């Protein structure tokens, strides 16, 4: 009982001190957080309108029944899965430069999954009935429905990626050695789980024979390949920003290693894309209509054509940037490559994946889809929320990692070292 009381006191103390920590910062920090907050509030107001009127406030319709929200969801689940590219080098191969930042990467994964879950929530027509999806309380259609699997997988991954970093950080805060026997199984579990969340997301599109564009065996491998391009690219950019605004030590070697992994993933992504294009164009069955819509336009409808070609160009350019060591190891060009990958994969995996699945629809209709202002604002709001949450998490995690933020029993200024 006493021990429990002690833990409670310590937790409250920790929580209180983190609140103080996030409330203090530089002018840039305030500007960043407040502008994000502004975007979030605008997005929320637009969401209220959607909640009141129904999904008719979006541009979705019976023919294209999933739009920008699900596109973003797909992309973000991929970005979240990319944390595994940090976990594997750190904990399996003990690669020191990445080991220093793996906790931050896991927190990034948690923010990403949170954003993905939020995108699904705003896409639901009846959010008030969400409890129907919970197992035991509602009536979750497990194991038949892949959406049920996705709910379990995503929430499990979220819990893992909050639990593991928090456990490690809190231990370090109290200058205690983490019990590796306890935490390592969870860490190792998060590796297949990361692959799992994105595979399940891919399967939820894959298992629909009604949509030949998605009903391809290549879907899950392509999802993983593109996820392992975009996620780490975001991580590279974010960590450079973190390195600049805080005093965490981040070796360039870590970034270059991640970039190398991106090169392999991008090669796989491009190869799988090539395979898909060959299959569709050579077989030339009527099922190639969505691919034709995407790359050439179908019966005069060609809204997505410039987007996908831009994405292709970006991906190929980025591939060369990441592959050639000279360009990979020049930070300025590396950053360009990262931006190209992030945007290129977003186009390819977001709108360039979800929308052609609905065009043409099962009865042959073609209705193009552009997100309207409400969808854009709500999407921006959720992205801003994710960035804000990640910022706040970093505001706490980095001082703990560097040793600046520590238990009151210890003096401040002790040089940080992580007990491995």
């Amino acid at each position, binding site marked *: 009982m006493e021990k429990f009381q002690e833990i409670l006191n310590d937790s409250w103390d920790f929580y209180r001190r983190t609140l*103080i920590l996030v409330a203090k910062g530089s002018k840039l920090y305030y500007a960043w957080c407040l502008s994000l907050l502004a975007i979030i509030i605008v997005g929320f107001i637009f969401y209220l309108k959607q909640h009141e009127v129904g999904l008719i406030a979006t541009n979705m319709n019976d023919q294209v029944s999933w739009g920008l929200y699900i596109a973003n969801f797909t992309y973000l689940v991929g970005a979240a899965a990319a944390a595994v590219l940090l976990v594997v080098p750190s904990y399996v191969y003990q690669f020191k430069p990445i080991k220093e930042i793996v906790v931050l990467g896991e927190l990034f994964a948690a923010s990403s999954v949170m954003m993905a879950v939020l995108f699904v929530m705003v*896409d639901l027509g009846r959010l008030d*009935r969400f409890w129907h999806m919970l197992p035991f309380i509602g009536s979750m*259609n497990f194991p038949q429905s892949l959406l049920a699997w996705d709910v379990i997988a995503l929430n499990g991954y979220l819990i893992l990626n909050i639990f593991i970093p928090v456990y490690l950080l809190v231990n370090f805060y109290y200058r205690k050695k983490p019990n590796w026997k306890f935490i390592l199984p969870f860490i190792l579990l998060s590796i297949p789980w990361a692959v799992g969340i994105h595979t399940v997301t891919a399967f939820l599109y894959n298992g629909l024979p*009604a949509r030949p564009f998605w009903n391809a065996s290549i879907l899950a491998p392509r999802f993983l390949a593109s996820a392992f391009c975009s996620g780490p690219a975001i991580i590279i950019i974010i960590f450079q920003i973190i390195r600049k605004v805080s005093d965490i030590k981040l070796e360039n070697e870590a970034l270059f290693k991640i970039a190398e992994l991106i090169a392999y993933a991008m090669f796989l992504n491009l190869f799988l894309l090539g395979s898909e294009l060959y299959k569709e164009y050579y077989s030339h069955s009527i099922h190639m209509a969505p691919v034709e819509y995407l790359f050439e336009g179908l019966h005069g409808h060609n809204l997505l054509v410039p987007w996908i070609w831009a994405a292709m160009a970006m991906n190929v350019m980025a591939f060369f940037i990441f592959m050639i060591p000279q360009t990979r190891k020049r930070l300025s060009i590396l950053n360009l490559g990262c931006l190209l990958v992030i945007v290129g994969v977003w186009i390819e995996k977001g709108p360039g994946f979800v929308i052609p699945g609905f065009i043409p629809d099962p009865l042959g209709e073609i209705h193009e889809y552009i997100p309207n202002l409400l969808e854009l604002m709500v999407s921006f709001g959720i992205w801003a929320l994710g960035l804000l949450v990640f910022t706040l998490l970093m505001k706490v995690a980095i001082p703990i990692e560097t040793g600046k933020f520590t238990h009151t029993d210890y003096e401040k200024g002790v040089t940080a070292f992580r007990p491995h």
Partner: protein
Amino acid sequence: MQNKRYTRREFIRNLSLTTLAGLSLPLLSSCAKEEVEDFLQKHFHEMTEEEKKRVIAKLEQRYLQKYGRKFQISTKEALPDTLWGYGLELSRCIGCRRCVYACVKENNHSRHDPQLHWIRVLRLKRGNLINLENSEHYYDPDLVPEKGFIYLPVQCQQCQNPPCVKVCPVHATWQEPDGIIAVDYNWCVGCRYCIAACPYKGRVFNWTEPNIPKEEINPSVHYLGNRPRMKCAVEKCTFCIQRVRSGRYPACVEACPTGTRKFGNLLDPNSEIRYIIDRKRVFRLKEDLNTEPKFYYFFEA
């Protein structure tokens, strides 16, 4: 100095938390008892007879208020030894869409914003049947049938291996014993996964609160069929569950002026539909997807 800053921080923190709480109030809306009841309503299958009766009474009350008509809401179960099948003689369909609007009237569809049709009539050029990409849904000539075209009405096929039932994350849609795929409108969360999964575009979504003109409302409804729906719930053809479970023809069958549509019990060897399957050359749409639809198309000429 430290304490003063701390108090100011705390003030800002408290203010922002209160603002957030205040902003979330619209989401919680006016938690009237009725809405709490709606929120906690169980899945149709899990309701006891008592609970079903209560829900029916509540709905009758609501519809009386909203539409000014006394509704008869049935929860009639499937008849024993029935498996409903539908026949459609493609050589006779002239594309007049009388079936579409008879269905709209019988099943209390939203007329506009959104306009929901459970039946969709496709116009295909003669010589082309399977590639629906070349179909035209919005044909509007002065007279039908037009020369050189055939017409293919499509609606929910009440598949025996329904992909929509497989993908629904909350069991809001299921297959009834008589083969009809039913939707519990109060259980659907509006994720639209079933719409993505249906190969026949049989399911449509109430993108907002439906608009049904009061004078055209049909008050004999079934809980799983044509009762007025609410926003953000999926709906589809139910083979007029409110009619067929009493042995009556569906509305589209009775509306067709050329006798294109046939209906019957697949398990009854003397039924009209069995006669058709035994003697005519029937086919079903997208049979290669193995959904086993119960909608049999056939040609005479």
